[in-house]
């Protein structure tokens, strides 16, 4: 069972590798940002698999914190993409 969890984690790491390639080629910034976000999601999954494999419940807290905060870089990115760097692209849709 433990080996299975590590193998599942390995597969998630392979998806991380695929996302890294997307960060490298881009070409737009949104693609790079979305790949980084995808890696955040894979990271949460991998942490949970490690928690199961090593039988350490405290590791689940790491997944919790990661899941809570992983989207923050995307928020900063969206802010940076607005005209004055402090706005919200949705403001133009009225």
């Amino acid at each position, binding site marked *: 069972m433990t080996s299975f969890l*590590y193998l599942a984690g390995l597969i998630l*790491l392979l998806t991380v590798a695929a996302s890294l390639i997307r960060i490298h080629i*881009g070409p737009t910034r949104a693609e790079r940002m979305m790949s980084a976000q995808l890696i955040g999601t894979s990271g949460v999954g991998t942490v949970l698999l490690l928690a199961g494999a090593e039988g350490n419940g405290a590791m689940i807290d*790491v997944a919790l*914190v*990661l899941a809570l*905060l992983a989207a923050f870089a995307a928020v900063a990115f969206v802010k940076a993409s607005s005209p004055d760097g402090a706005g919200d692209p949705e*403001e133009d849709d009225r």
Partner: protein
Amino acid sequence: MTAAFVFDAMLCLLLVGTAVSAVAGRDLFASIAFFVTYGILIGLAWLRLGAVDVALAEAAIGAGLTGVLLIGAWSMLQRRCGDGGNDPAMPVLPKLAAAAVSVTVTGMLALAVLALPVGAPGLVPLVTENLSESGVGNPVTAVLLNFRAYDTLMESIVLLIALVAVWALTPKELWGGVPGLRQHARPDGVLATFGRLLPPLGLVVAVYVVWAGSEMPGGAFQAGTILAAVWLLVVMAGIAEEPRMSSRLLRLALVVGPAVFLGVGLVGAAFGSFLGLPVDFAKALILAIEFALTFSIAVTLALLVAGTPREGT
């Protein structure tokens, strides 16, 4: 066991690849994306090394604050120099100097690691032996808040000094103003909703992480980072503004953590040793220090990311 080895090998490969891409990449934004990713992978590596406390700090700092800080800095650079924030005119000499400093630090760290005695248990038996006298069950918290409390005290003061250094960059006419850009968002938009939905959850998680810190991985620094990130989200969503730099309440919030820590230390000094905690009250005192520190660390980190005051206020 082999599956774990293959996992570790893949993780190391990704870590080195991400680090090289972050440093060697030509596009600044791609480098930031790689660096954020690197933080997540380093967190996984700490978990594999059994350092859950460090992984927790890395998850909070790497995923929560570094991304916001770097993307904010990139956004400002882009507005000032154009060309995606990439500055082709950067002279070679500062680049070489930065590389030299980095290589020296890395070399010294490598030497320090190689100088560690191999196979020796270090201070682990000493900590385990005295854990029952520390008042807490998490050995990391016992070391940070009891056995080696003065390190943590100085770290909390260093954080404060870092903020003083950032504030020192404030132009004279803006002194005392509101830090950071004036943030605004569509009131009923996705960002504003997100900014209302997430902070209560973040608050609960932060309080949990401090409380859990006494018996299992967690603690003031991790929780303070979560609070800081959540507060930055509230500000970015245009729901609330950063307080003025000149606010007395803000200054008080900044120093309360180190002050409580120092106060407990001085009372300890009156009864025997500086920062010595009596066994009977150790847990209560550690929790008091941790909660006060969490608050101050959160305020300090949030203001560090916000930067100097905006113009035109």
